[in-house]
């Protein structure tokens, strides 16, 4: 089959690889009809996530048709012919983490748990196409994928919704939603979202759906801010204005009640010298993150507010504003999304028309043009917000 693979830092390559087979009895094989490039794929390609290997199949946002199921998948859960969206964290459904609906912390699905444990203190779940640290599972930017624990994760789509309407239930819609949900939004809340990429856009939409009074989008790309504005959110361009001052202006001097970091470890920064400091530390590996968005969110948030982190971090960061966090009674909440928890309720919101995930799609390309898609997305060419690939 054809598959998009990691072939070194800043290099992806669509190549021929073997077709996937059943390896565990609760596996299914899915013929992929739509898949997407995620912002977190860029962290892999940019070389910020360790344990990638040449030839790793990328991609963790995908959906398609079940063409084979293992002997351990009960027929009432999944059958050949079912149309499914596959959540990016692989979860067993049986461990204590899964019982607590903390699916991305599943205790059983990462065969390389020993490595993850050394890096993170405790292991994390397996993730499709997302380094060997999260299990070494082939991803979904391919014609077919093996889906372990197929009786637990995949969401059956039984209505007539298009792929484009449901594909993002695999990751970015639940991720954005969880970012807003962790804010415990009240009707009086002003919510500020750092990053107007796909996850940020969905965090903004989710904050509105959850009842926020006002939602603010912070980015530097005019086209991304325009997209947020068209969806009813207030744009703030950090290339043009001082973010903290602008946020104070927009909130009567209080600061946003709730702040969402939808940027993560590769933030760009308005201040050249702080950006240079983090870049140098990152380059010599004495710091793995460039956490400008997180720092700014903590400093901007009103006292007693919540800072919710859904942007990806992988290691260690410097200059964490612990004083602001502690003295001003801020709550910091975070997590890789527990996608399985949100798929059904969010599908219902899509069916009811409360959320329109298609609004962020700017490009649809054949799988064979994945490399071009990565380039456009990374370099923000042609107003690229979200690339859907068709195998």
């Amino acid at each position, binding site marked *: 089959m054809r598959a998009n693979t990691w072939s070194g830092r800043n290099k992806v390559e669509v190549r021929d690889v073997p077709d996937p087979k059943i390896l565990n009895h609760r596996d299914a094989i899915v013929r992929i009809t739509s898949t997407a490039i995620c912002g977190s794929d860029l962290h892999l390609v940019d070389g910020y996530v360790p344990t990638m290997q040449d030839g790793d199949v990328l991609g963790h946002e995908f959906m398609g048709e079940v063409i084979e199921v293992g002997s351990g998948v009960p027929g009432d859960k999944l059958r050949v012919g079912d149309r499914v969206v596959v959540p990016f964290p692989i979860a067993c459904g049986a461990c204590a983490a899964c019982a607590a609906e903390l699916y991305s912390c599943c205790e059983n699905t990462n065969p390389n748990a020993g490595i993850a444990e050394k890096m993170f203190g405790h292991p994390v779940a*397996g993730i499709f196409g997302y380094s060997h640290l999260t299990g*070494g599972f082939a991803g979904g930017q391919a014609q077919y994928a093996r889906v372990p624990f197929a009786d637990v994760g995949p969401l059956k789509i039984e209505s007539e919704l298009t792929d484009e309407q449901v594909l993002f239930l695999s990751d970015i819609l639940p991720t954005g939603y969880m970012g807003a949900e962790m804010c415990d939004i009240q009707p009086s809340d002003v919510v500020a979202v750092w990053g107007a990429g796909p996850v940020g856009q969905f965090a903004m939409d989710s904050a509105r759906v959850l009842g926020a009074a006002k939602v603010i989008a912070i980015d530097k790309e005019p086209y991304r801010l325009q997209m947020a504005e068209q969806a009813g959110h207030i744009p703030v361009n950090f290339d043009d204005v001082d973010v903290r001052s602008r946020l104070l202006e927009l909130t009567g001097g209080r600061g946003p009640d709730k702040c969402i970091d939808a940027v993560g470890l590769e933030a760009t920064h308005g201040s050249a010298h702080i950006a240079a400091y983090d870049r140098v530390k990152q380059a010599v590996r004495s710091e793995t993150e460039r956490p400008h968005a997180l720092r700014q969110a903590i400093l901007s948030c009103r006292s007693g507010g919540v800072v919710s982190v859904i942007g990806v971090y992988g290691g260690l960061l410097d200059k964490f504003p612990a004083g602001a966090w502690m003295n001003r009674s801020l709550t910091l909440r975070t997590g890789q999304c527990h996608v399985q928890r949100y798929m059904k309720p969010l599908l219902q919101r899509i069916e009811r028309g409360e959320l329109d995930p298609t609004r962020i799609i700017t490009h649809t390309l054949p799988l064979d043009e994945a490399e071009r898609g990565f380039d456009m997305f990374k370099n923000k060419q042609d107003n690229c917000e979200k690339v859907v690939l068709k195998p």
Partner: protein
Amino acid sequence: MDLTATTTVRKPASEVYAFWRDLENLPTFMAHLEEVRAAGDRTSHWSAAAPFGKDVEWDAEITEETPGERIAWRSTGDADVPNAGTVSFVPAPDGASTEVYVSLVYEIPGGSLGKAVAKYFGEEPHQQLDDDLRRFKQVLETGEVVRSDGAPWGKRARKEFPQRPAQPLSDAELAKGAQA
């Protein structure tokens, strides 16, 4: 060499105990074992997997068993690598899980066998037992050892670093199996 490790399995103590008490189950998750065969009610014959030391076999007997709580065993006769172990099962505070505490003792011999065993355990001997217990938990909670494309061979995973790429296995690789 003394090793201890612990894990929590989300199953009642009676079930976790019963799985361990059937010693023939041990090779499904313990990387250094090829086979355990029950001989009598409390006696068994164990053989090691090649990396631990080729053609290493020994007899063992259960020295203590308290159903649902504790099992102790030791090698008998003149085993090449004399060893003993205990495992305790303690109900966890969540009311649904069982804490499993394992303690193993190996008398590492001299000569080439001793070297092979030392090499097997490597610089972090506890890692082996930790990984064994991780697989024990997988088998009890999910039914089998979880495989990925990067680590397709279950309990041989540690031998696989650097791993094969995270892309599907070819028919030839699958046919060759763990030796590939």
